[in-house]
């Protein structure tokens, strides 16, 4: 390994380092504040390193990992998201009576997995990244067991996530093995000239399909979405916030890279299947979200729908026109960022309103009734996030949806654009219902008896809210960044 490679890998090493340091520290000296500060510091340091390398051209570090603008962009997104998610979790953890420091260890390991995942252009790194992330995640989902009523839900969620994650990983592995059996290469670019030609045997076609199935589980595309609502509901909110953002975004980022670099878009049957998966995701996600009374479940179904919207842009990449392709890849990257911002706010607010000391999560409509008049700041942020999820202008979600729309229209995917319209219209109802609930007159006995919003949460939530609005009104900066980031995918 050369020094330049080492330099390129430095952010990953830093993240790995903090997880080891945290482990040693936890072994001898438990201190939540210190652990959180180490984690923040590590993430910031890694982010600064990644940002410092931006613009220095692609750098293949070992055959497994590539550091180019695309992976740097998503590493940065993941690190910043994780930082925000950790900061939002601090107060929640402080008030709960579980082992707190382990959250930081597991979280930094999951982030390590996510960063490795988005930087991989080889099946080995791809699999290591995805597993590192999933294994840490199912520990995170399950280990904070508290309260009699929540215990069963949490454990069920954890076991469900573990088993389905394991099944999906084995699908993934089998798919990789089949592709390898056919071509004898494991790097994405090595597949480029092989996959999707007329001579492609059924082995690699089945292999590619199985890889997609494995990833579809992680991305909760319909019909592989069954675990999502249960896990979202069962996991403690800070973990749900992380699960909903980082794990989804990193897997989506890599599936885009995989499809473009390996030429899998040339497998027409697969693309056709993806179209139907997208249609189902949008309809089922939005349709079932209409029926939910539990906010976490509602957001789970809404995230299924949003992943469906993302697929519209994803499938548009398959279109032949070069300029369209770029537009579509940009659309996925932009929408992912938008999705992160709005989901983080929504889950961040549920985190802030929850009372772990009473093993109670703010997940019913009653928790939000009259919030606007009791905590106008939080309610405004939540309202913005919901409007953004619904795709109303002046928010980042609108620009994202506009981008996706543009990609779909440019790719002439009329079926998908039509379903996108229907899905968005359905989506309005449940987002607005929540907004309406917040605007109702408060109950005489407020469900939330918390007095002060902790400073950390206030800072993070206002920063995210500001990002949501500023990018919603002046999207140009992010568009330029995204444009530069996806230009390397060819």
């Amino acid at each position: 390994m050369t020094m330049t490679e080492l330099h390129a890998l430095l952010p990953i090493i830093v993240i790995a380092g903090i997880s080891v340091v945290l482990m040693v520290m936890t072994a001898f000296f438990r201190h939540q504040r210190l652990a959180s500060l180490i984690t923040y510091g590590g993430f910031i340091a890694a982010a600064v390193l990644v940002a410092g390398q931006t613009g220095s051209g692609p750098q293949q570090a070992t055959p497994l990992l590539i550091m180019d603008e695309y992976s740097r962009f998503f590493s940065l997104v993941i690190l910043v998201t994780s930082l925000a998610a950790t900061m939002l979790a601090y107060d929640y953890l402080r008030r709960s009576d579980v082992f707190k420091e382990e959250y930081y260890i597991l979280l930094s390991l999951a982030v390590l997995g996510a960063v490795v995942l988005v930087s991989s252009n080889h099946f080995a790194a791809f699999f290591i990244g995805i597993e590192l992330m999933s294994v840490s995640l199912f520990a995170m989902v399950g280990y904070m067991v508290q309260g009699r009523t929540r215990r069963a839900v949490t454990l069920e969620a954890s076991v469900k996530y573990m088993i389905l994650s394991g099944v999906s990983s084995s699908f993934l592995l089998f798919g990789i093995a089949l592709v390898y059996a056919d071509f004898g290469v494991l790097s994405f670019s090595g597949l480029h000239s092989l996959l999707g030609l007329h001579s492609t045997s059924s082995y690699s076609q089945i292999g590619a399909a199985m890889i997609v199935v494995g990833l579809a589980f992680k991305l909760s595309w319909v019909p592989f979405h069954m675990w999502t609502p249960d896990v979202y509901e069962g996991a403690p909110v800070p973990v749900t916030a992380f699960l909903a953002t980082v794990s989804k975004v990193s897997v989506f980022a890599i599936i885009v890279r995989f499809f473009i670099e390996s030429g899998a878009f040339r497998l027409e049957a697969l693309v056709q299947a993806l179209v139907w998966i997208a249609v189902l995701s949008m309809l089922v996600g939005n349709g079932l979200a209409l029926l939910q009374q539990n906010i976490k479940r509602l957001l789970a179904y809404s995230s299924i729908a949003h992943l469906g919207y993302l697929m519209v842009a994803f499938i548009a990449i398959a279109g032949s026109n070069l300029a369209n392709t770029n537009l579509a890849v940009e659309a996925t990257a932009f929408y992912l960022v938008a999705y992160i911002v709005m989901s983080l706010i929504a889950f961040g607010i549920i985190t802030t309103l929850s009372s772990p000391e009473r093993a109670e999560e703010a997940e019913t409509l009653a928790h939000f009734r009259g919030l606007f008049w009791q905590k106008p700041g939080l309610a405004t942020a939540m309202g913005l996030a919901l409007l953004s999820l619904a795709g109303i202008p002046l928010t980042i979600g609108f620009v994202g949806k506009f981008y996706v729309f543009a990609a779909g229209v440019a790719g002439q995917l009329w079926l998908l654009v039509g379903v996108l319209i229907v899905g968005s219209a359905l989506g309005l109802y449940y987002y607005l219902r929540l907004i309406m609930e917040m605007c109702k007159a408060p109950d005489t006995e407020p469900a939330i008896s918390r007095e002060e919003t902790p400073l950390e949460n206030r800072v993070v939530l206002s920063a995210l809210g500001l990002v949501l609005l500023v990018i919603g009104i002046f999207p140009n900066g992010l568009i330029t960044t995204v444009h530069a980031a996806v230009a390397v995918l060819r």
Partner: protein
Amino acid sequence: MSYGASLITHLWPLVLFLVLVIGLISLMLAGPYFLGSRRNARATGEPYECGIVPVGSAQYHVPIPFYLFAIFFVIFDLEAVFLFAWAVAVRETGWAGFIEALVFIVILLVALLYLWRLGALDWRTFRQKRDRASVLLR
């Protein structure tokens, strides 16, 4: 000779073996059905036909250390696998390889340290720990 044909010449013993194994197992499973006599006495359904009568349910909680034992085994077994792979190429990888292996082992050590401090190596049951504590207190 084509690739497919050579594959068949190479594989046919394996296929035969598989067929034989399946045949033998089916024979063993089906044989008693035809050969054995059938009686329906009170003790026929019990796990041990001649022995102690089992008490209670067969589904009981396996103590957690059992899983820990398994996990520890997996971790150290896996470590050995990696080190074997390194050992094969120890000269080619040189000092860089050595440092990498060292990092790997150190991380495992840290994990062990953490587990030790957490009490994962203390395999007594909850009750045993409590009794020991009360003995010490006395």
